[in-house]
């Protein structure tokens, strides 16, 4: 084995191992807005930003309100030959609810509604005390871990592109009008994109770890 040998009692809290490639770095205090990247693979390791936590809380709160609005208002309405049919997002997920496709309805509802709402709530829970300079609430580490782990499975933005494709498919068959929930969802996508690009995970973990 090469490299320095670390003693059992040595303080390791000043080190970062790149989560992607395992290279060790010394965590230095960065100036506001400075970005530290891994020397080998270029992954962003640290990116402290003044007021970033409060921004993420604000975005999450906006996102949650939009999401709740999107559930209760009509999403799309279709009309053909004098017949019409309205559907909410709930109705979209329930399209799979009969027979052997029922678990798929549950999965779709989870991916487009439950996970985004849960992630917003967990982010607010984690970051609200930190944004105010107070120690993290209990179980904040679990909450933020879930925020990270569930991220690939929250698919609100993919759902919107799916809606666009569906509208084109219906195009020849009937007239479709967009409900308020559709627009709420579009704004939601922008909110999610802004929120995700605001702060590095290391900065949040560091704040959670400080007692």
């Amino acid at each position: 084995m090469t490299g320095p040998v670390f003693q059992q009692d040595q303080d390791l809290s000043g080190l970062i191992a790149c989560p992607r490639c395992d290279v060790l770095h010394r965590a230095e205090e960065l100036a506001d807005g400075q970005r530290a990247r891994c020397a080998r693979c270029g992954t962003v390791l640290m990116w402290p930003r003044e007021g970033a936590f409060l921004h993420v809380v604000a975005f999450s709160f906006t996102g949650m309100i939009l999401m709740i609005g999107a559930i209760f208002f009509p999403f799309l309405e279709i009309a053909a030959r004098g017949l019409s049919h309205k559907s909410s997002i709930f109705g979209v997920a329930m399209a799979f609810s009969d027979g052997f496709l029922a678990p798929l309805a549950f999965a779709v509802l989870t991916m487009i509604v439950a996970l985004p709402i849960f992630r917003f709530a967990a982010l607010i829970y984690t970051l609200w005390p930190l944004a105010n300079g107070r120690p993290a609430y209990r179980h904040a580490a679990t909450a933020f871990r879930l925020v990270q782990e569930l991220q690939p499975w929250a698919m609100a933005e993919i759902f919107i592109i799916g809606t666009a494709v569906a509208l084109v498919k219906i195009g020849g068959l009937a007239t479709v009008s967009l409900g308020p929930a559709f627009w709420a969802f579009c704004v939601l996508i922008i909110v999610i994109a802004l929120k995700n690009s605001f702060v590095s995970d290391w900065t949040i973990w560091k704040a959670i770890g400080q007692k």
Partner: protein
Amino acid sequence: MNALTATDAGLVGCTRCGLVWHQDESHCGRCGAHLHVVNSHGLQAVWAWWIAGLVFYIPANLLPMLVTTTLGHAQKNTIVGGAIELWKHHNYGVALIVFGASIMIPIGKFIAVAYLAITVGNENRRGGAPHLHMLEVVEFIGRWSMIDVFVVAILSALVQLGFVASIHPGPAAASFALSVAFTMLSAQSFDPRLIWRGINREKR
């Protein structure tokens, strides 16, 4: 490049939050993630999910994805059939989106993940950055295959006009959704630290 890794230093890095621990710790004291040294056991999970994804991908393409009933006449469409239908109606852009998300992305993902898993341990490789980029592209783009499942859900929920027109989901919707989920799990189980470390070095 000879950078010192946590493993070389006899330590273990947390893959979730980046904090470094001694190798006898089993969980990260800060974020609670399970700590594991870089090893190739994880590749078994990658392959298991990969095979499951492939197994479900086959019926997803053979069975009908959508059943459209227009004025009493039922028409069944597979994934490819749906894309061709769109193309015939001159919706070229959307046809390409559907084709890309449902055919190109899944197949590209199967190839990319298999390539990454097979080339681990290839000591002739020059640096790992292109491989990491490949994994990041797979992780980023893989979820977008879910588009077609959502399209089917929206169409089935919306187009319920009785005799005039109604759309119902076919069995391919479920197997395609499972295939996408399994390939996402396959890519997530791949430990990118293996790209640099390889299998041979670990046995030393």
